[in-house]
C-alpha cells in the first residue's frame, strides 16, 4: 500500500466489536484512524476520544480533538449503538427514546458535524452501520429496529443532498455478528438466529469491516444511498 494516500477516518464506538474491526482494517490500509468510545478505551495504536454520542457538546469536542490531531475527517463510520430489548408491551417510552437517541439521533449529530467539513473539501465518505433487523423487523427489538430503519431514510436523503459535493452516504446492514452485543443474547437465542441464516453461522466483525472499507475506497466511488446487506442471506428480499 506504499503509494496510497493516508486518509483521516473517524469511527464512533470503535473500541470493540465491529467498530474496532473497522479501525484495524483502516489502519492496515495506512489510514490515520481516530475512534470514539464511551466506556472502554480502544487499543493504544488508535487515537481514542472519549465521547458520548448522545451529547452534542461531546461530539463537537471529539471532532475538534480529531481535527487538531489529524485534520478534517474524510471518512466517517457511524457505528456506535445500543440495544434495550424487550417486547413492546413492556417497553417504556424511555427505553424507546434512549435507543433512538443513541442509534439514530447520534448519527445525525456526527454526520452533520463531519459533512460540514466534507462539503468544503468537496469529497467525503459516510458509512452508517444499520442492521438486518431495520428492514426485517425483530420481535423484542422494536426500538432498535426502528432506529436502524431510520438510518436508511436518513442516509438516502443525505445521498441526495450531498451528492453534488462528491460525498457518498451508504448503509451497511449486518446480520448477526459475533460481538459482545450478540454474546449477551444467550446460546439458545443465538442458535435460533443462526438456524435462520442461509449461511448457517454468524459473521465475524472483520467480514463487516471489509465491506465498510470497500465503501470508503476508490472502487465504491459511484455507490451512494445504498444499503449493503452483510447478513449471510438472512434479510434477502428486503
Amino acid at each position, binding site marked *: 500500500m506504499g503509494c496510497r494516500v493516508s486518509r483521516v477516518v473517524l469511527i464512533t464506538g470503535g473500541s470493540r466489536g465491529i467498530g474496532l474491526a473497522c479501525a484495524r482494517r483502516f489502519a492496515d490500509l495506512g489510514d490515520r484512524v481516530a475512534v470514539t468510545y464511551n466506556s472502554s478505551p480502544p487499543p493504544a495504536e488508535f487515537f481514542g476520544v472519549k465521547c458520548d454520542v448522545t451529547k452534542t457538546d461531546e461530539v463537537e469536542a471529539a471532532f475538534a480533538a480529531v481535527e487538531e490531531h489529524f485534520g478534517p475527517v474524510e471518512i466517517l463510520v457511524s457505528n456506535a449503538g445500543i440495544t434495550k430489548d424487550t417486547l413492546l408491551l413492556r417497553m417504556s417510552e424511555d427505553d424507546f427514546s434512549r435507543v433512538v437517541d443513541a442509534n439514530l439521533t447520534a448519527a445525525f449529530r456526527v454526520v452533520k458535524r463531519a459533512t460540514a467539513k466534507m*462539503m468544503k473539501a468537496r469529497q467525503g465518505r459516510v458509512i452508517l452501520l444499520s442492521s438486518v433487523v431495520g428492514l426485517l423487523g425483530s420481535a423484542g427489538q422494536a426500538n432498535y429496529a426502528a432506529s436502524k430503519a431510520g438510518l436508511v431514510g436518513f442516509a438516502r436523503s443525505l445521498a441526495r*443532498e*450531498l451528492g453534488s*459535493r462528491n460525498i457518498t452516504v451508504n448503509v451497511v446492514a449486518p446480520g448477526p455478528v459475533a460481538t459482545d452485543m450478540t454474546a449477551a443474547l444467550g446460546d439458545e437465542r443465538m442458535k435460533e438466529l443462526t438456524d435462520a441464516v442461509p449461511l448457517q453461522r454468524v459473521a465475524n466483525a472483520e467480514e463487516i469491516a471489509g465491506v465498510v472499507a470497500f465503501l470508503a475506497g476508490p472502487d465504491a466511488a459511484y455507490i451512494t444511498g445504498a444499503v449493503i446487506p452483510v447478513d449471510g442471506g438472512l434479510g434477502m428480499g428486503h
Partner: protein
Amino acid sequence: MSQENFDRFVKVASATLGVESDKVVREARFKEDLECDSLDMVTFVMDLEEEFGLSEIPTEEYEKLSTVGEAFDLIMAKL
C-alpha cells in the same frame, strides 16, 4: 452601508462560492449570475454568520434571498 463590511462580505462570498470578487455586486443574483445552488447558499450563510459573529439565521429568512444586495442587507440588519 459600510464599505469595510461589504468588503468582508465579498471576501466570504468569493471564498465560499468560488466566484471572482468583481462579480459580487449588489445586483448580482445568486442563482442566475453566480450559479449557486441551495447547498452553496447554506454554506455561504454559515460562513457569513461566522465572519460577522452572528447567531444562526433561520432558514426561512435566507431561503428567499435572491441577490447579493438582499443578503448583505440581511446581514447588516443582524449586526
